[in-house]
């Protein structure tokens, strides 16, 4: 590993002789291609496997599908009868439902709270900000049992309510929105207020439109987080009708229960993965490092 770093070290300056520069380029592209293959390879292997027969997925795990079979995909999309098919539709609908609700809630609440923390002067603002920063320090896994206990006490386990509400507040999103509101020019808001616009009206018709890029960024991050959420749903429900894609897939722990039907499993894994990649690509221009900057306090 450290060897890689050393190699990299030698590629920083730009003052090489033409021959050295060419070598450097070849080495850089070589290393990048190798790693691109490692990062994308598993997806390609699973895509290929989803077009194999169960037997050939085991006997020929890496190669191209031969014989080429679409039966796994037919099963996934319900063209042939399969127990998994019926479930996959339900899982997908559940995933879409909870993702939509969580995203709308997170974006709405984060922009309201973010705006209040950025611009509105109210007694206790510092304490609220402190609380939100403190909450960001609480590791999610630690909340697993505590949240289960509360859901149980409130008797809202195995309801959509219980799956959605604990996830509505995302303190990182609040913080991100606060930072973004603060970066907006204040003069426009002042002008609106002098013209007599109420706080909420200023927020809704002037501030929010200006914050569109960051709203989109928070939306995409919320969609990704909610779609991929697993642990919270695991404690919020134990009934199959509430299974999301992640929860449903997790039944095939360690490949068990699939009867080694890897094509079907790989297809289902891709169905879970691909929507998020599409969402990300569609909105990629709003990110360019911002996704990472979001986690930078």
């Amino acid at each position: 590993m450290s060897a890689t770093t050393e190699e990299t070290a030698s590629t920083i300056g730009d003052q090489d002789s033409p021959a050295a520069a060419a070598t450097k380029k070849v080495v850089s592209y070589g290393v990048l291609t190798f790693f691109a293959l490692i990062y994308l390879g598993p997806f390609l292997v699973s895509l290929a496997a989803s077009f194999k027969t169960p037997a050939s997925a085991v006997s020929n795990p890496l190669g191209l599908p031969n014989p080429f079979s679409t039966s796994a995909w037919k099963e996934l999309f319900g063209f042939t009868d399969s127990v998994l098919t019926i479930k996959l539709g339900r899982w997908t609908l559940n995933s879409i439902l909870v993702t939509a609700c969580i995203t709308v809630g997170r974006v709405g609440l984060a922009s309201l709270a973010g705006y209040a923390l950025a611009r509105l002067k109210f007694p206790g603002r510092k304490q609220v900000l402190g609380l939100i920063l403190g909450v960001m320090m609480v590791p999610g896994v630690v909340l697993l049992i505590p949240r289960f206990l509360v859901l149980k006490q409130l008797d809202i386990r195995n309801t959509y309510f219980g799956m959605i509400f604990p996830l509505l507040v995302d303190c990182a999103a609040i913080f991100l929105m606060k930072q973004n509101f603060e970066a907006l020019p204040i003069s426009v808001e002042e002008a609106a207020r002098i013209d007599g616009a109420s706080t909420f009206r200023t927020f809704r018709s002037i501030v929010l439109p200006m914050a569109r890029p960051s709203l989109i960024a928070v939306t995409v991050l919320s969609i990704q987080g909610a779609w991929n959420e697993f642990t919270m749903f695991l404690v919020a429900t134990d009934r199959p009708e509430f299974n999301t894609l992640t929860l449903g897939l997790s039944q095939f722990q360690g490949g068990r229960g699939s009867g080694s039907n890897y094509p079907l499993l790989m297809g289902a894994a891709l169905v879970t993965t691909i929507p998020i990649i599409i969402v990300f690509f569609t909105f990629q221009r709003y990110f360019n490092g911002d996704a990472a900057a979001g986690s930078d306090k």
Partner: protein
Amino acid sequence: MSIAVSESVGAFADAGGSELSASDAAREARKSLKQRRRKEGMMGWLFVSPVLILLTVFLIIPILLALYVSFTKWNGQGGPFSDKVERVGLKNYKDLLVNDGLTRKNFASALRNNFYFVILVVPLQTLLALALALILNQRKLKAKSFFRTAFYIPSLSSSIAIGLIFVFLFSNSGGINTIVGWFGISPVQWVNNSTGLGHTLFGLAGIDKAPGFLANNDVLGMSLWNWLSGPSTSMCIIIILAIWTTSGTFMLLLLAGLQTIPHSINEAAAIDGATRRQTLRYLTLPMLKKQIVLVVTLGLIGTWQVFDQIYIMSDGAGETTTPAYLTYTTGMREGRYGAASALAFIVFAIILIFTAVQRYIGREKGDVA
């Protein structure tokens, strides 16, 4: 910093008010300003109240409830506050840390498993992310955004879906064993294999059995020899999975940091005769310190929380249970909510201690490398 900005805006408004206070118009203005302030204060609370209510119900109350439950033997039957629930004081914590028994033994091996996970994943993913970011930061490189996206895709994807893909890759007749076969190595049983890497290395050095002092001394009820087992084979796959998934995010973070370093600085260093290694060591890395510290901190917090990957790939088999995973199995599977809650607080404490220590070290040393 930005708080200061809005604060100074407020101060400006104050100053304006007092200057004009002589005239009636100004008095009016001040009155309306006061009114506006009060209204603004109300709106402020109104805007944050949904968040505060939700945080109270789904974060603060759960933590307090779990704290209470951690001092009981509640098994989920009836309410936790009913008289039938036995209150046991610190027993749950003592069972984990002091009292000899199965609970402590399981906790010790979970702690060990997670410890090896942390000390392998954090440095490796940081170095990999740094290497990729440095290569991608070259000015004359084409297809940058393709590579950046390719490295980031695993970070975007569902850990459960990716875990399933890895289950397939590392199954006995899977792709990894095929690749291993190209190098003439016989297939490895990756899943459900608790052989420790450390013990394997000791074996290579001719130490097959624990030397007396390692076998006879124990910490938390587990012999030193078992503490030195290293990560199990099954844990190694989860380590690879974790590095593969998170390094993309960290690469983006480091790349964003690198891009703020002006190129002219590197050129100046080159003109002054600095070698590239010197430039990296004395210029680039120190300027990247903030991002590296952040990546290590996020790595430390994340690695003590590993859960989904274990759930989908091993379900704790083959010495892959971690304290966080043990919280889940103790609570949700065994119904021992008191013990599970106590464990959750211990995991929290571990994460806090690790990040505090890491921050302290990060502050003390001026140099990163």
